[in-house]
């Protein structure tokens, strides 16, 4: 079977299951121990992800934004089960994969892929482009060598490269082209779900636009589901259907993108959106200035984690953690102002 046929098959079965949840995360926590002292005892924990619940629908793009250190990548890695959650459940297509061992995970791995920010670091420089793209097929499937070759040629053409690029090495390509190679590699096993962890952040805008257009085309063609992690709010708005905003390991707000960008509710989302420099030279948006820095996730504030920078903070915010609650259909916010 060629990739085309396989993908067609995939597409059909996916259309039947439209609007279904592909990924469900409930109360995910990921704490990393901090070791210290002469005996390297655990003296504390970095609460990288702290009680996050979300679901991702088949075929959609869920954007995940937040400042550096807010836990976006860690959450992505837990969902892919590259990391085991400290607490909580990861359900992929109805199966709990939270604590499966590596051998059992293998069956799921081919459905879930990741594309990283740095196409320089994430591609093995000693392998040719052909080998890079065919490696997952070699490891995970029993596809024959000539078939693998044919598939890698098809994939290269799909991502806008040429068949004879197979013989070249990553260093012979520009940043944008390397990102295309990473995408071809991620597509090789015909996955359903792809986590894109800052896939265009290292690229120049004109190249970033090429890669974003490519990702949108591939999503349509193969009915892919994306979790798109980025810190650039304009990029996330462009590519996403729904957007989640993270702050210090928690979700502050989650909504369909129109609602999130037009009617942000959480004080952090409001500040974040107002801080994005706008190319509109006529109308200047009023900026909401946040004082101070992101606190350390090793020692997060009590109550609402945003309270040390929140212009609306009040007494209750010190003692009580606000729950993520639904304000209007699909629009969730974690803030005491709305309770």
């Amino acid at each position, binding site marked *: 079977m060629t990739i085309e046929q396989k993908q067609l098959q995939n597409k059909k079965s996916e259309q039947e299951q439209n609007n279904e949840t592909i990924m469900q995360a409930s109360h995910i926590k990921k704490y990393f121990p901090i070791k210290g002292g002469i005996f390297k005892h655990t003296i504390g924990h970095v609460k990288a992800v702290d009680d996050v619940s979300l679901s991702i629908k088949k075929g959609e793009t869920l954007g995940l934004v937040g400042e550096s250190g807010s836990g976006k990548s860690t959450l992505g890695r837990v969902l892919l089960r590259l990391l085991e959650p400290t607490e909580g459940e990861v359900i992929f297509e109805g199966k709990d994969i939270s604590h499966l061992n590596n051998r059992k995970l293998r069956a799921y791995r081919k459905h879930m892929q990741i594309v990283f920010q740095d196409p320089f670091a994430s591609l093995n420089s000693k392998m040719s482009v052909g080998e890079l793209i065919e490696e997952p097929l070699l490891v995970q499937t029993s596809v024959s060598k000539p078939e693998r070759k044919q598939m890698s040629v098809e994939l290269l053409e799909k991502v806008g490269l040429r068949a004879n690029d197979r013989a070249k090495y990553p260093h012979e390509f520009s940043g944008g082209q390397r990102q295309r190679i990473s995408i071809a590699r991620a597509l090789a096993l015909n996955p359903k779900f792809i986590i894109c962890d800052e896939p265009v952040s290292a690229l120049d805008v*004109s*190249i970033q*636009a*090429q890669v974003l*257009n490519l990702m949108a085309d591939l999503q349509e063609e193969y009915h892919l589901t994306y979790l798109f992690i980025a810190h650039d709010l304009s990029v996330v708005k462009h590519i996403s259907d729904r957007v989640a905003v993270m702050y210090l390991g928690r979700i502050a707000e989650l909504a369909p993108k129109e609602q999130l960008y037009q009617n942000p509710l959480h004080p952090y989302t409001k500040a974040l959106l107002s801080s994005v420099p706008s190319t509109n*030279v006529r109308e200047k948006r009023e900026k909401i200035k946040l004082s101070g820095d992101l606190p350390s996730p090793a020692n997060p504030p009590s109550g609402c984690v945003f309270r040390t920078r929140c212009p609306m903070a009040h007494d209750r915010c010190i003692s009580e953690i606000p729950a993520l609650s639904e304000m209007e259909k699909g629009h969730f916010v974690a803030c005491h102002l709305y309770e």
Partner: protein
Amino acid sequence: MKENPVLEVSNLKTYFYLENNFVARAVDGVDFTIHQGETLAIVGESGSGKSITSLSIMQLINKPGKIVDGTICLEGDNLLTKSSKQMTKIRGNDIAMIFQEPMTALNPVYTIGSQIVETIRKHKNLSKHAARERVIELLNLVGFPRAKEVMNEYPHQLSGGMRQRAMIAMAISCDPKLLIADEPSTALDVTIQAQILDLLMEMKERLNMSILLVTHDLGVVAEYADRVLVMYGGQIVEETTVEAIFEETKHPYTIGLLESLPSLEKEVKRLGAIKGSVPPAYLFPKGCRFADRCPHVMDQCRESNPELLSIAPTHKARCYLYELGGGHSHDNRAKTTAEQKI
């Protein structure tokens, strides 16, 4: 403003001499002026020559790079004729620079306080005590409420945003006339980025400096610059006011850049990506350096490189579309065709 040029760069060429006789023409004939109190932005993609232009002004170009031609005049005085000892004095005192990664300029083994005290005493005849007082004042000014404690902290103890504040304090410690800021906020998160850029602008007003702001972020340009240079392939391809660069965009490269940009305000189904990628600085084509990526390329563009010409009193562009008939009839040529394409 116009009457008072602080820095005039003309025909600046900085080349890198690579192996196998390759020459990277990183900066290749750049002319511009920065006026008193002005914020001039240089925008362009990676490798367009923005950083090498600013490092050339500071004369911080190392082998295999070399400034091979041009003049760089600070208030009429050509810096390229100065000895390295004289330049050391000028750097920090008259022209200061801040970088994307403050750790490139801060020494990890000295406290913040001692580094700024050092800088001040190198340029100003102050006692140690007076210099310390001045540093506390500066740290307060750039937004450290606990300036006295920060004096004794090491760079790694500060967050990225705080380090950038410390860098700014150090850069303005000797009242420079010109501050060069190379991607000062790129490594920072947006809420912190806004704090840092606002701080820079506040310091500019207060100290009556001029700023050369190097950035790849057109949003930052729109919010903070007065005038803009767009660089491509080691050359300026468009130069104008901040309003005109967004509203009367002329050069096909600038137009492409703006269309590539997803925006918070408007929704587009597809982004107008520019095809291909930037040619490396040792392999520029003979003609227009943008020719391989340009949707309007003509035969002539492959033959020779257009000049940077004035097309309006405050607007220059390097493109044959605006040279052909000259003047107004071609004004919206590139733009309308680009729009039709979408």
